[in-house]
């Protein structure tokens, strides 16, 4: 019997995965559009929908971004379970519309933002940031959003606003992981006001040019690239300006292990493991962890004179 190479399909005729994915996106987009028409013009905000008018920004790392699939399937988001794959599996139950974010506390102009209004507050920018998890792995993620300072300025903090507290949604019907008492819910994080005002501190609404997937903290999350990942609160419902340093969920859970600052610092180890190196997802060998995750030039002045071993 003659064995011939199968020539039915030329390699060049096989749809490259990017195009294939785009086509799916396109179909999803059409579906979204149709749904929008049916629902009477309700804006569709599902993951995978392209965000319009995203500008490039100066904060674009030259490193290759971590593949979309890894960014959206390897997550820590305990509200949906403690396994890395749990958020991608279970976050479908999160409803990101309607969604409001209350801005309150020590501000002259407290306000409850509808997320769609918040999206139009400032031009959306793409920012490619390093993300370093306290567990010792890292990614490079092209986020979409704008500086948190845009929102803070509009709220007009009073002189008493020394810290900002971020609170994540706490609804067990939408977030099955909340039934486990693994952390004190709601998930709470905090920044010093100057950290919150720093131009690097991002209020993110998307990644890879698209609406933020639920498992990555939709519809709106914080991204503080020089701190360990857990500082970047997800699915935020409340931003509160306060005078006293807030206690974050991780500080409450293990005060010896997680401090308020949690700046990426290769010289200050986690009590149980080293922080000197990290494994970037997709790479084989570990790489050295950089001071302030490589953002020392921009943020080191915030901590001048502070003992970073003490204020870990």
């Amino acid at each position, binding site marked *: 019997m003659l064995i011939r190479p199968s020539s039915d399909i030329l390699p060049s005729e096989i749809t490259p995965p990017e195009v294939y994915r785009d086509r799916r996106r396109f179909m999803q987009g059409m579906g979204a559009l149709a749904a929008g028409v049916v629902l009477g013009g309700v804006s569709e905000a599902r993951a995978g929908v392209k965000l319009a008018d995203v500008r490039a920004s100066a904060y674009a790392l030259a490193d290759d971004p971590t593949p979309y699939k890894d960014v959206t399937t390897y997550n820590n988001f305990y509200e949906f379970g403690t396994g890395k794959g749990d958020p991608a599996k279970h976050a479908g139950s999160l409803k990101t519309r309607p969604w409001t974010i209350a801005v309150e506390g020590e501000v002259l102009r407290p306000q409850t933002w509808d997320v769609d209004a918040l999206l139009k507050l400032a031009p959306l920018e793409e920012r490619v940031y390093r993300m370093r998890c306290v567990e010792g792995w890292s990614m490079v993620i092209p986020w979409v959003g704008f500086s948190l300072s845009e929102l803070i300025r509009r709220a007009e903090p009073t002189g008493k606003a020394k810290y900002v507290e971020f609170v994540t949604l706490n609804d067990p019907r939408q977030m099955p992981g909340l039934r486990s008492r693994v952390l004190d819910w709601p998930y709470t994080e905090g920044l010093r006001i100057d950290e919150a005002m720093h131009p690097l501190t991002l209020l993110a609404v998307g990644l890879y040019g698209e609406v933020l997937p639920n498992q990555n903290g939709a519809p709106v999350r914080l991204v503080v690239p020089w701190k360990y990942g857990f500082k970047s609160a997800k699915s935020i419902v409340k931003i509160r300006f306060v005078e006293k340093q807030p206690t974050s969920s991780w500080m409450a859970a293990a005060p010896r292990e997680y401090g308020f600052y949690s700046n990426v610092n290769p010289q200050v180890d986690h009590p*149980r493991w080293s922080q000197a190196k990290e494994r970037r997802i997709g790479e084989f060998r570990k790489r050295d962890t950089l001071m302030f995750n490589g953002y020392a030039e921009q943020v080191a002045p915030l901590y001048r004179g502070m003992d970073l071993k003490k204020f870990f």
Partner: protein
Amino acid sequence: MGADLRNPKLWIFGLCLLPLGRLVFLAGSGGLGANPIEFITRSTGTWTLVGLMLTLSITPLRRLSGRAGLVRYRRMLGLFAFFYASLHFMTYLWLDQFFDPAAIARDIVKRPFITMGFAAFVLLIPLAATSTSAMMRRLGRNWQRLHRLIYPIALLGVAHYLWLVKKDLTEPLIYGGVLILLLAMRLPWGARALKEVRNRWVAAKY
């Protein structure tokens, strides 16, 4: 070679290879996820613990079932625990630390969970080395004494797991619970309880 398919040892051997087969299959098909090295480390660690628990379950099962012959399978289970522990240790040495002796030495001294895991592995080596029938004969009574090391080894293994997880202790606590149960069944009152269960069971049967 006349491998007898009715010999349970053959089946147990095959079953014990399944976790490794799964890893090889997943590696080949790109199914190890975003962090393959973490996946392999966790998987080989998990199967080491499972192997230790299965080895420790033989004695209670013998008492419960009255089938002394079960002891024939214990060596193979113990050696598989050692096999997965070796893979686990190699993953750490090679894929995690890239044979960097300074980093490894620092880790073993400084990190309690590495210290415990390393100690457990080192203690397993003499047990594996003396697992042959010839060694059993040579060591006589001392063989049993030596092999009681499996109790601290299993405890160290569970402590190693408990100490490394970030926050969710559920899984290591399950292993801890099973281990405590297995050890308790060896204490006088545990053994009595097993005997009691067996007597009722036998009485119900006839």
